[in-house]
């Protein structure tokens, strides 16, 4: 299980640009011990980056069967300027239902960080925001 704290203001919205702050992630990823602590952290940080991308940037736009944004010019992914510092507490708790107590580590933060960011934007704006990525017009309703 992975939880990303969100919803109580870890985003700053200014001029329709969204800056995420303090992507704090709690991940009980390990079995009793992380086999490769550095890789565990890297997977979590990288997963958060992908989830952040889905929350506010990444969308393949298709019309009439043609992908309209087939390059990094118009399909944006987070750059090093977009990523907040990611502070981690990795809880080494074995999964009682899995062989050897194993847990995966890559996917959970990827999945959970997107709703965490959007929940935070909801809290900051009071808007429903029922789709991702959240675009500026979803916040300004223009």
């Amino acid at each position: 299980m992975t939880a990303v704290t969100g919803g109580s203001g870890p985003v700053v919205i200014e001029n329709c640009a969204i800056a995420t702050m303090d992507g704090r992630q709690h991940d009980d990823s390990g079995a009793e011990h992380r086999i490769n602590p550095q890789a565990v952290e890297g997977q979590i940080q990288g997963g958060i980056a992908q989830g952040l991308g889905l929350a506010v940037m990444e969308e393949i736009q298709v019309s009439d069967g043609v992908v309209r944004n087939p390059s990094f010019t118009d399909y944006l992914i987070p750059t090093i300027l977009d990523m907040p510092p990611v502070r981690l507490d990795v809880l080494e708790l074995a999964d009682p239902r899995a062989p050897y107590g194993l847990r995966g580590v890559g996917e959970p933060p990827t999945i959970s960080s997107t709703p965490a960011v959007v929940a935070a934007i909801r809290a900051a704006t009071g808007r429903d925001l029922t789709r991702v990525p959240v675009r500026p017009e979803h916040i300004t309703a223009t």
Partner: protein
Amino acid sequence: MRVTMTVNGEPATADDVWEGESLLFVLRERLALPGSKNACEQGECGSCTILLDDVPVCACLVAAGQAADREVVTVEGLAGRLGPGLHPVQQAFLDAGAVQCGFCTPGLIMQACDLLRRTAGVPGDPDIREALAGNLCRCTGYEKILDAVRLAAMRMAGDVA
């Protein structure tokens, strides 16, 4: 056409180069230097970053002819430049866990080398982020890349072993 240049300190010649051929193609396909990665081919991702006369450029955006008689340094040329073994930036990327799939790594290392060459001491995080803003990474979330650049800077400044 024939293009001659200096690559990683050695003279290099490529024959039958098409006028529109990129420097990246010549490096990878004609000079057997596949370290510089071919990804977006439009200067958006930074994976093909090299040094051309000590200036970082996207090799995909430089016509091979533009590199004639100039000096090219690729990631293959870093090891041994500042003493035996890997370049401090390369070693720091390994030690900090800044490499996951590795595709962006050569470009980031070249860009980081340029930053540290023109920075006295350890650059601040905003400077590191600014310098690496043109290099996309899909895997790492950049945190350990920042760690690696800080570590390399401290080692090069003699602050840590």
